[in-house]
């Protein structure tokens, strides 16, 4: 579909289509497939928004409002009591743990991945090509399968129930995709730039940090955001490698909170909103970067 040449459609028209009536997103087939595309697009928006809307309005209801009001109606008297309850139950600690684990994983992962991607793109030899092949293979292997030996290693190293236990494997798991995307971008840096810098007597170490890094900085930021998202939302490592509330991270806290407050659904949903808010802020600030970087990174 040559989407850039399509006629604009009236976006207001299809909104009355409700989630339960609409067919799956339309394939173009009649005279004006752009209308069908728009219908499908607005339908998918409803699919995406409905659960988010439900979570937000329910988190603002009190218990009696939750049991008596229409579940899809906004609260008649919104309350932040649920948020207060969540914030009082050590939310700040879980947030801080998530932050430490995310920053502690992403910064080293970016550093080692950038160095590896630089060497893979600019260097030669069997060592680098087999390293690259190994990382590509890493993309195809469900690394969840390695969790039992990782659990054994972490307990033997007396790191069980520490934040470091979460950081180390998170770095490793971030490497294959980070190297792939960064090397896709590094390949676009023209060789002439390296040549002229080399004529000035620059070492490879200097070229890597002073030429390559500034040129692919948008890609580094993108990969950083993507890795951070994965680590921040990670569930399996915290579930298996930590235990106590002192080392609990946000996604796991949602799960335990759900257990503790199973009768108080609005409070549980308030914790979901609170755990998502920091990412929403990041998304609003860095969306363009994330989206454009990722599309470029994967479509190369």
């Amino acid at each position, binding site marked *: 579909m*040559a989407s*850039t040449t399509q006629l604009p459609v009236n*976006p207001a028209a299809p909104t009355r289509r409700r989630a*339960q009536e609409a067919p*799956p*997103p339309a394939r*173009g087939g009649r005279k004006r497939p752009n209308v069908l*595309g728009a219908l*499908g697009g607005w339908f*998918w*928006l409803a699919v*995406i928004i*409905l*659960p988010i809307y*439900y979570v937000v309005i329910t988190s603002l209801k009190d218990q009696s409002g*939750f049991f008596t009001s229409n*579940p899809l109606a906004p609260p008649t008297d919104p309350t932040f009591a649920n948020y207060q309850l969540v914030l009082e139950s050590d939310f700040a600690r879980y947030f801080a743990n998530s932050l430490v684990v995310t920053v502690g994983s992403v910064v080293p992962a970016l550093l*080692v991945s950038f160095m590896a991607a630089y*060497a893979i793109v*600019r*260097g*030669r030899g069997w*060592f680098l090509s087999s390293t690259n092949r190994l990382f590509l293979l890493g*993309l*195809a*292997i*469900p690394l*969840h*399968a*390695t969790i*039992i*030996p990782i659990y*054994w*290693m972490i307990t033997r190293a007396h790191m069980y129930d520490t934040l470091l236990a979460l950081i180390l494997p998170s*770095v*490793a798991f971030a*490497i294959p995709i980070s*190297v792939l995307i960064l090397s896709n971008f590094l390949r676009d840096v023209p060789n002439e730039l390296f040549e002229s810098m*080399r004529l000035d007597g620059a*070492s*490879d*170490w200097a*070229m890597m940090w002073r030429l390559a890094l500034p040129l692919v900085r948008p890609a580094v930021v993108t990969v950083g955001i993507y890795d951070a*998202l994965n680590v921040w*939302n990670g*569930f*399996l490592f915290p579930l298996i490698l930590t235990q106590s509330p002192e080392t609990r991270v946000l996604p796991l806290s949602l799960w335990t909170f759900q257990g503790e407050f199973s009768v108080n*659904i609005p409070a*549980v*949903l308030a914790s*979901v909103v609170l*755990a*998502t808010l920091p*990412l929403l802020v990041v*998304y609003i600030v860095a*969306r363009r970067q994330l989206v454009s970087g*990722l*599309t470029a990174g*994967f*479509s190369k």
Partner: protein
Amino acid sequence: MAFTSTASRRARESGPSGWLAAPALVFFLVFAVIPLAGVVALSFTKWDGLSEITFDGVASWARTLTDPVTANALWVTAKIMVFSYVVQTPISLLLGVFTAGGQRYRAVLAVLYFLPLLLSSAAIAIAYKALLDPNFGMGAGLGLPALAQDWLGNSDLVLFVVVFVIAWQFVPFHTLIYQGGVRQIPGSLYEAAQIDGAGRLQQFFAITLPQLKYTIITSSTLMAVGSLAYFDLIFVLTGGGPGYSTRLLPLHMYLTGFKANDMGAASALGVILVVVGLALALILQRLGGTNRKASQLEGA
């Protein structure tokens, strides 16, 4: 910094030193490759996760392979993989094409489409558990008895609910990939097609789809291998139930190892998981021809 001098000396002939890739390689070897070997080794042992590990021959394998729950887990995994692939691919492809268009309202829609990327699987599972509640969820809100079912407690329905929630979570990511792919298609192709009088539908099948071949392979590979990692979501949403109806392979591995304390059998399941993942990736690469591999490895 010890390798700086080596790097610069070798740089003159053959690019940067391979040592730059060493830190990433070490992380990946220690926390991915060695555990991969470890999971094979552990599948021939008896271990409850706490006491000593003892060699146990093929006992774990015999137990795993004769257990009907294993066969069921494989079957559930296959069903979820196929259904979620069949649901997600056309939706993400069409949404990717749709959002690649230039109109402003599409850009605004795309911003909202990507919101699920921010939520952790735990958050999504908790949100849907509340939303699907027969008494206090969406069904009751809309007053439609058909939607007010015990979605998660009905073993005939729960698989489709899981597939739907997976699509909700992962379609945005694949939409992003397709959007990037569509934007790389040269506009001249569409202009030429229009001069030849091709309609939108013809353009879609004659230009867009063939041009997206490698994007489809990338997305399909990530989707297929990723479906072996749908752990967090299902763990929180259904816990594998009711009965064994959503107990897919990674979840079965976790429950066998960390709940039933049979790490030997769980490791055997982990090996099966790796084999399935590798086989899928190889099949998809083969389907895509060898060009892709060559282009990925160029410059390596």
